[in-house]
Each structure stands twice: as structure tokens, then as C-alpha cells.
């Protein structure tokens, strides 16, 4: 256990936001979800008790009789926001005094630093380069991410959950978000920051980042595992595998969307275009963790090998 190394990694001023991220993101996820669950319970309670529904408009539990139905923004909200502003300012002040900008040496074109890392917000993309070829990871995927975020309001027409936390009414959206942002994006940033060391090798936290470390891994393409030789055969094989995956993914997602009557209700309302677009993005998103597992656990380099691109 090289605690010195661990400390150097987590105390580098550049990495401090990531360490904070690791604590803050789970906390607020939990906090938001717990609010959502509370609201869901309240919805049940109010639906059972119309009298209460008349007096009770505040969202969270606990609620006591005699409490005001409405609370004014001034002073009750603003004073809390003011306190929050003070606390955040204090944190920023202390942070800026204690941690200076992490300057390094002047760039040297003849010498690449090792590990050479992107700024933390791009580390997820950099990590993706391990699993896909640069064309897919560097161009196609980022474009898909941006387009995917852009189409969200056109796919998600569920009006529930506006202005309050709820889990029951937005299960699918919440799980998609948790999966796409927290599991994929944030965890890849964390991996890129804390775990990838010299040579972009996998160093578990607490091991020494040894520049001399050598690792023996042979990565194979999936067609090679099946002993395919010809280029055409490989292209066809890859296309079949990808096709199978897409079909399986589409069926799985379809099943998932029809799991509960509530979900079925929302799904029914969606047009064909909406469904197809959503399927395309979700299947692409799902491909990332599957490829990660294939690469890290089964040492599969590419599934679909073509002269133009590799997946």
C-alpha cells in the first residue's frame, strides 16, 4: 500500500474537484431520491385523504396539522438561500487561498508527459479511447452524446414531476440519467483521474505509479476468437453480432418500458419516431459498458472490424 502515492493523487489541486465529486454526487443523488420517495408517499397519503389534500400543499413530510399551507418566498426561502450563498462563498474563499493553480513545466514538443491526461471534464472521453477506435470514441460518441441530450425534451413528454421530486412517476427517466451520467460519465472521469497511471495502465488506488511497470495483455478481436480469417467474413460476422446486439437491446428496452401499467401508459403515448430515436440512443449508450466489460474482463479489442472503422 503506497499511501504516499495515493495522497499525491488525491491532493493534486487538479484532482480535488474529482475527489469532491465522488462524495457530493452520491450524496445529492441520495438526497434527491429520498425527497422523491417522500413525495411519493405523500401522494399516496393525499390521494387517500381528500380533506387533507385541501389544506396540505407543502410537499415534504413530516407534516403537522396547524402548519401553514403556504410559505412566502420572502423571508423564508431567501434567508435560506442567503445562508447557502454565505457558505458557498466561504468554501470558495478557503479553497482559493489554500489550493493554487497546478502549474507544470513549459511544454516540450520532444517530450510527452506520462500519463498525459486531458482536463478532468474530458477524462471520460479519453477513457473511452481505450474501448473504441479514435474515430468512434473521439467523434461519433461525443456527437451522439450531444444529440442525445438535445432530443431529450422531444422524447420525454411525461409532464409529471415538474416542480417536485418524484420517483414513481419518472422511474425510467431517473434510471436513464443515473445510468448515463453517474455510472458512465462520472465513473469514467473517476477512473481516468484516480486509476489510470503511467502508460494509461490500470493502477488500483494505493499502488505505486511505476513508470517501469510492464503488463502483459493480448487483446483479440472477437472474429479472431472465433477463428475467422477473411476480411469479408470478419465484416459480416461483426455486422451480425452488432445486429443481434441491437435487436436484443431493443427487445430488452421494449420489455423494460412495458414493465408496469404506469410505464405502459406513457409508452403508449409516444409516437413511432420518438420510440425509434430513443431506442437508437439507448442502445448506443448501453454499448459502452458492455464494451468495457468485454475489454477489461474478456480482453476483446474490437467486435466489428472493418477497413473503415472498428467497433
Amino acid at each position, binding site marked *: 500500500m503506497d499511501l504516499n502515492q495515493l495522497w499525491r493523487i488525491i491532493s493534486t489541486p487538479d484532482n480535488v474537484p474529482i475527489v469532491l465529486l465522488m462524495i457530493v454526487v452520491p450524496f445529492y443523488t441520495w438526497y434527491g431520491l429520498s425527497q422523491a420517495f417522500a413525495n411519493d408517499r405523500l401522494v399516496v397519503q393525499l390521494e387517500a385523504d381528500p380533506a387533507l389534500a385541501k389544506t396540505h400543499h407543502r410537499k415534504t413530510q413530516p407534516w403537522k396539522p396547524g402548519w401553514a399551507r403556504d410559505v412566502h418566498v420572502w423571508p423564508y426561502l431567501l434567508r435560506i438561500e442567503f445562508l447557502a450563498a454565505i457558505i458557498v462563498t466561504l468554501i470558495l474563499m478557503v479553497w482559493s487561498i489554500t489550493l493554487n493553480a497546478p502549474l507544470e513545466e513549459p511544454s516540450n514538443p520532444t517530450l510527452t508527459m506520462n500519463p498525459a491526461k486531458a482536463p478532468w471534464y474530458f477524462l471520460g472521453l479519453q477513457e473511452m479511447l481505450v474501448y473504441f477506435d479514435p474515430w468512434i470514441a473521439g467523434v461519433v460518441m461525443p456527437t451522439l452524446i450531444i444529440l442525445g441530450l438535445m432530443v431529450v425534451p422531444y422524447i420525454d413528454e411525461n409532464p409529471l414531476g415538474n416542480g417536485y421530486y418524484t420517483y414513481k412517476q419518472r422511474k425510467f427517466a431517473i434510471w436513464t440519467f443515473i445510468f448515463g451520467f453517474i455510472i458512465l460519465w462520472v465513473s469514467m472521469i473517476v477512473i481516468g483521474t484516480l486509476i489510470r497511471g503511467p502508460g494509461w495502465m490500470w493502477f488500483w488506488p494505493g499502488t*505505486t505509479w511505476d513508470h*517501469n511497470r510492464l503488463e502483459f495483455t493480448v487483446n483479440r478481436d472477437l472474429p479472431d476468437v472465433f477463428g475467422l480469417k477473411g476480411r469479408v467474413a470478419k465484416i459480416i460476422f461483426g455486422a451480425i453480432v452488432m445486429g443481434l446486439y441491437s435487436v436484443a437491446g431493443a427487445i430488452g428496452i421494449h420489455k423494460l418500458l412495458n414493465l408496469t401499467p404506469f410505464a405502459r401508459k406513457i409508452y403508449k403515448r409516444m409516437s413511432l419516431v420518438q420510440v425509434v430515436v430513443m431506442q437508437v440512443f439507448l442502445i448506443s449508450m448501453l454499448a459502452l459498458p458492455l464494451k468495457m466489460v468485454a475489454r477489461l474482463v474478456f480482453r476483446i479489442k474490437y467486435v466489428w472490424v472493418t477497413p473503415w472503422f472498428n467497433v
Partner: protein
Amino acid sequence: MSDQDQDKDPVVHSSLSRPLFIWSALLLLSLGWALYDEVYGIRPWKSYQSHFSKVYSRYLRSVRPNESTFEKQIQASPEYQKLDRDAEAARKTVAAQVEARDREVKQVLVPQTLALNDPFQEVRSHIGSLTYQIETTNSQSSKESMRREIEQIKKEIHTVKLPMPDGTTKKVDYDYARMDRDLLAWKNRKAQLLQEIVDLQKPYTELLAARDKYLSDRVADVSSGMLAGLLNKMDDFDIGVRQIHIKDVDLVDRCESCHLGTREPVTLTKAAMGGEEVFVSHPNKELLKIHDPEKFGCTPCHGGNGVAVDSIEKAHGSNEHWLWPLHSRENFEAGCQQCHVKEIVTEMAPALNAGRELFRLRGCMGCHRYEGFDREPEEMISVNQQIRQLENQKAEWDREIGFTSDKADRTRDNAEAQRLYQHANDLKVRISGLDAKIEQADMRASNLIREVKKVGPSLKEVRMKMHKEWIPVWLQDPHKWRPGTKMPTFRLDQDDIQAIAAFIWQSGVTGNLPTSSPGDPVKGKESFETRGCMACHSMGEGNDKEGGTFAANLSRVGEKDNYDYLVRWIHNPRERTLPYCPFEKRDLTEADYKKKGVPFVFDMDHSKCPNDGHELQVEQMTPMPSLRLTVEEARDIASYLLTQKHFDATYPAADYLDDPKLKTHGAFLVRYYGCAGCHEISGLEEEQRTGTELTKEGSKPIERLDFALLGHGAEREGWYNHKGFFEHKLQDPAVYDRGKEKPNKLDRLKMPNFNLSKPEIDEVATFLLGSVDSALPERYYFEPTDQRQDVIEGWWVIRKYNCMGCHQVHVGQTTVFMTLPRYQDPDWKDQRPPSLIGEGARVNPAWLMRFLANPALSETDTNRDGVRQYLKARMPTFYFSASEIQKLVRFFAASSSQSMPYIDPKMEAISDQERTMARQLFSSEGAPCLKCHATGDAKHDQRATAPNFLLSKERLKPGWTERWMVHPEMMQPGTAMPSGLFRREGDRWVFAGPTPPSFQNYPRDHADLLVRYMFQFTPEELNRLRASAGAGAGR
């Protein structure tokens, strides 16, 4: 809390005032913290500055009383008092006159001028503006009207109240012309009066200056006046960043924000500054004078981050990622190397010089290329290339001449034909220029073949030189056999040693070696110790070691060398058994010469290959010179050296050296380990260096230095930097193999161990740390184009041949002779070789050139020294190449600021009468010159301790000779030449002792007379002088 409280709505009823208060207070605190950080936290230099002004003022106050009491003592001295009184008296005598003039200036001229000046200026500016309008307007009529206006203004009358000396005022009417006239007159009068005052007071001010000079001459450091000035400066000390900004190179150095004492005029020590080392003054003010911080800054020499002031770590650049950290104490001269890249000797940088010398002498340059070191082989390649290019050019032009002439013959147009013939002729002339160039390059090439030297001895001749059994023992661990030797210890196992030894042995040449009869070891010892061998070689082991470190320690030579070879070597170390032809890449044998019907003779005069006419290597590539000893003396020395051995040493038989099976592997290993970098080895003459180039090693990115498995440990222990890498590598060259799994031993690091001592490691590390790809602009580099360049070049030759073993070349240097016990004896002190300080001013360069080429100054009688035949130590023959001689002569001229080429000054002919006078003086008892100076008479010269006068004309410069006669002690402290021979009388030198009667009424300079006598000295005159001196001594 009660139930009542619990039932209340927390959003509405709970009070936020407590958290608001606490967090606001914390926010305020953080604001305070931010302010503190801004003002003091990231500006630690502020507290340094206030502390400095405190301790410095305290120190100044503490020295002031001492200084002033001392000053008072001087002021109380009668000399000072007298000067003071004289000054006062001088002031009083003119006081009344000064007073009168002063009064006129102050009471009349100045007030009246002031009163008149305003109206005058008013009118003049009006006229000026009108004149400008005249110049710029186009209309003639308005020009005319304005001219009239000007006339009008000039005529206007102004009434001015002039103050009078008695206090009243007087009204005077002025027009412009009169104002102008009066003002000018008053101004002139004032200037005249002031000048008169200065003239009157001249004796007084001169006396005052003399008085103050008397004081300042006697106060060593700074006067109390200066101290008071410094104290005042400390009183209004203002705290702020102090920076040197050099605009054109964008250099900002704020070092002096904390190191405030660096350039103070008072020398500040750590103790004086209350134990604060940060405030001491720069230890070498001389160095600062040459490298003015206003032009050079601090960081270019010292390293560190000149801009950073927020912590010591950052300012000194010891934080991670800063590429140019402050040089540590033992390496601070690394900064010199950055700009003084072309030098082997840099003044005031002893450690760096030692590092460079180690790099050269220990043979580092045999494996590692370093620009400037061992450059002859590279230069040889480029000169040969140049010759080839020039020859191609010549052939091309030859062809063109043919074409052009042909064309000219055929053309009909006369003018065109003329032009073509002219072109052909021009080319012919240019070809003759090329021929001259080729001749020069050829000469350089043949010079270079002489200049190439190897660090180690030639291994071609081991068969003739060595005892076979010794070789494996030596290879095993050279440092065990001969501590301190240049040969490093390689990481060899028994098989490797056998193979290498076998290859070396079998590749050796054999040749005819005359058998010599044994010599006399007792005489040999005497010769060894007095002829000068010990300037380079040392003798004795352990603490008994005496002599130079330039060449090998000879205390165990008797165990390894063959007598006959040693005799030949001592007699002339440059003698080779077989010449080497670089063109055919082999040693020529007698058979080669026989085939061509040429006698088997090769030396400087017969240095062309009989097969192809190329320049041969006819010398051993050793810097060891010939002492021009007789064969008998060489035998004596060889016999003596062979007595030097451990009598109990045993060497196992080594018959495997003749095993031909080992040879191939041995050759591979010899090549692999780069033995040919230092040794001449058959078949490996053209080997390249095996190591990495080190010219810019100090700025190699740290990632490229292979710490191997030690990297993390180095980071933890704080030596993960260049300094740490070099030091560990030099300490143990195999250190970075530690823990590495290398089953094939050829994968191991192959750098051998030089067994350097800690100071030596520091010196080499200093040299390497300074070997950087400097980011400094060109003008910082020391690349002089004047005579200083000759000094740089000359040092390389001087170091190469170890001139400093015998001679003092620069002030303050110790020669080996000065350290030898025998030469501590007063009788032997005169036997030390002469000092060469000021040599360039002393000798005629043409003579020096001749002397360096042939120190015997004779082709036939070589068993002698050309100048100082009385010295037992002898100036050896180095067989310098022509360009080395040039460099040396230029070096001496440049280091004595003599212009080159030297032109003999015209010398006034000496009259017969003067010659007689000089002869009388030379042989008088007051000046027994011939007692010490040699005369050529063998009996007399046995006791002589100075050169023959016959040499003066050719050898010396008259100016120097005169200075020498007058002040020898000043030029060479401890010289046997007596000082005070002359005294100053008016503007001439007069002989101080009793002079012969003929000197009475001789009005001219005696020293000059003697110089002219010496420079017009003839052998006949010497005989006459000798006769009269003999007669004088007889009486």
C-alpha cells in the same frame, strides 16, 4: 425542547440567526485570512525586508563608532592637522577678496537681473510669436504690417524698478535693445566674478582635497560619512519588491527582494547580520564586477526562479516542474559552464575547471562525446572533407576553363571572345587561390595527425612492453593494483578478462627493439627526481605519494614492464614500432617499405605512406614529451624504475593469452566496452565512441534519465534530479542496475567505475550540471572575438600537455615542483622551472615559436636546455604541431596583453663610449651580473643560475627587460635577480650601487643604457666582458 415547540412549523418558526451569525463570522474571518494572505502570506519578502532594515541599521550603528574613533585618530595626526591648518590659512588669505566678489554677485547682479528679466521676456516672446506669424503667413502685406509692429514693440519704453545695493530702488527707462544689452553685460560680469572666486579659492580646495584623500587612503572599508549615508537610507527604507529587469532578454529577477545585502558596499557576513545567511553580501565582488547584475541578473548564473517571491522553495526553483533549480553550494560553478562553454579553464571557477580536467584526463571523453573535448579526430574528418570539396571545385573550374577557351576560339564576335578569354583567365587566378586553400588544409591535416592523443597507452605494443601475466591482474581491478589510476574498473568476470587479455595480447605488434645494457638505478633515481618526470608522474604509495597526478603513478612499474622497451620509451616516448596508415587502416611493416624500395624510416620528416602517399601516424599518441636524454640516462632511469615493485607480488601464469580461440570474443568485448576510446588498439583505430553525448546532459529532461528501479526511492529521498542522478552514477556507475533482472550480462550498464572521491564527484557533477542547452540569449555567451579568444584556445593546449606541472601559468597557481619536498630547500628553489606569468611581455614571439619547436635551440647539441642550461629540470620537446605552437604563442601574448604580430621596436645604436661604460658596470662589483648569468664557459656555467646575455636580443622584449631590471621582485616574487638595483632620480633611473667613474656626468637613463647594451650584445663583446670581469675578479 417542549412538545409545543416541536409542533411549530420549522420553516416559519425556527430562527436562522444563529447559523447566519456563525457563518457570517466565518466568512469575515476568511476575508481576514485572504487579506493576510494577500499582504503577508504570499509575500514573505516583506518580513525579510523589515528584518533586514533592522539588523542592517543595527550593524551599521555598531561599526560606526569603531570607524569614527579610527577616523578621529587619523584626524588628530600631525599630517592631517597640518593639511587642515594650511587649508584654513589658504582660505583666510583670500577671504576678503572672495567676500567682495560674492557680495557684488548676490546683492547687485542677481536682483537686478531678476527685476529686468520679466519685462524683457515679455517683449521677447511677443516678438517671437510675431516672427512665427510672419514666417507662416502668405500675404506680403500682412508680413509687412507685422514687421512694422515688431519695430514698434522694440521701440516701446518700459520703466523698470531696479534694486540698488543700498536697498533703494531706482526707476530706469528701457527699450528692448537696452534691456538686451544690460542683461548680457550683467550675465558676463557674473560669470567673470564666479570664475575669479574659483581661482582665488583654488589653493584652498586643493588642500582640502589632499586632506580628505589623506583620510580616505587610511580608512580601509568605508568612511563614517558613507556609513551615515547608508544609515539614512535604512531610515527611509521602503518595503517593496526589488527587481532587476533586463528588457531585451525579458529577464526579471527579484532575488534581491530577500537577499538585500548582496550588493551593499559594506561586506556583510552571517555573524554581522545576526546569523541571517540570506542577508550576506555576494562573496565575490570581483565576479560581480565582471558580471554586472544589472546586465546579467541573478538566475542566469545561479539558477532558480527569479520571478517567484512567494516562498523560498519556489524562488529557489526547488519545486517540482521547475527546470532550472538553484545550483547547490558544491555545484554553483555549474552556472559558469552555461556561457563559458568553449573553455577548459575559466578564471575564478576552480571546481568547474577541475571537473572539466577530470572529464578530459580520466578519459570520460573516450566514450562520451562532448563538444570541444578531444575534437581533433572530428576536425580531421571535416578537414579531409574540405580538401575533397576544394579538389572537386578545382576540377570543375578546370573543365570550365577548357570549355570557355574552346568557345572563345570558335566565336566570331571579337568582344564576346575577349569576354570569354577574360573569364577563363579569371578562373585560372581563382584556381590558384584554391591551391593556396588546399595547401592550408593539407597542412592542417598533417598537424592534426600529430595533435590526436589518447588518454591511455597504446595497446599495440603490449607484447614488447609488458609482462604477459600482469595483464589479467590489471584488468581485474586496476584501482587495486594502482590506486588512483585513470584506468577504470570494468564489470568483468574471469571469462571476459581472459578473452580481452588474449585479444589485446594477440593483436599486439612486434618489432625490433635494441637490447640495452643495464644502467645505474642510483643515478636513475636522481635523474627521475630532477629532470622533471615528477611534474606528471608520481612515485610512492599511499601517503608517501609524491609528484604529479597528470600521468601514472610509477611505484610498481618494475612488476610489469620490459627493460628494453622502457629504455626506448624514456629516451623518446613518441617512437613507434610501426607506423599506422589511416588510409589503409593498418600498421605498415618493414615489408611495405621494402616492396617500394624505400628505407624503413618513418618520422616527422618521413611521414608519407610509401604505398599511397597519405600522411602516416608516425608518433605514439601520447602527450608524454621527450626530455632529450642520452641513451645512458634513459637506461639509468629505466633501471631505477624497474626497481620499483612489490617484491612479494605474484602473478599466476597466463598461457591462455596465446589461445587463438579467445581472440574473437575478446575483440567483441573490447569493442563493446569501448576500450579504443582511450587506447590505440590494432584493428580498432576507427572506433566510434560507445557512450551517450554529454554536451547538453544537464538539460536532458529528467524523464529521460534512467533511474530504473531507484526512481521512487530517489523521489522519497529527495535526489530525483540531475544532481542526484549524476552523483549516484559517478559514485557507482552500476547503481541503476540495482534490482534489475538482467540474465545477459551484456545488457548491464557498461560504464566502468572510476573510483572518484567525493570532491571529484562534485566537480564532475558541476561540469555536467552546467552542460545545458541554455535558454539564455546569445550575447550572454562568452565568445570573444578579440585576444581573449587566444587565451581560451591556448588553455586547451596548456592543459593537454600539462605545462602547469612545471610552470606557473597564472597568478596563484601551484606547480608540482612547488610541492616536491626536495624543491623546498632554498638551494633547490632556484632549480624550479621558470614562471610563465607575463611570458608574453617578456619574450619575442618569433623566438618563442622557435623555442617551443626545439627547446634545445640547436639541431646538433640536443642534450641541453636552450635557455637555462643551469636547470636540472629540462624543458622537454613536445613535438607540438605548428598550430599548437601558434596557439601557445598567441596565448602568452594575449594573457600579457601584447599585440600580435610583434614588431621589434627601433633601438638606438649604442656608442662605443656607452658600450665601454656598460661593460664597466657589468663587471663592476656593484653589479656582478656575470656571477649568475651564464656565459657559455662550461666551468663558470656550472654555478650559473640565469640565462646567457647573448640570448637577450633574440629572446626578450626591450620594454620588459627594462622593467625587469628595475623591479624583478614585483614581477616574480622570490626571484634570485636582486631588486633595487636602480633608483629614481628625476625622470630617469640611476644605478643604485657604486658606479664606475665614467658614469659621472652621464645624463641619460642607466637602465635604458644597459638594455641597449644587452640588445646589441655580440659574442665578441661577451669575450671582452668575460675578460674584464675575470680581471676584476682576479684583482
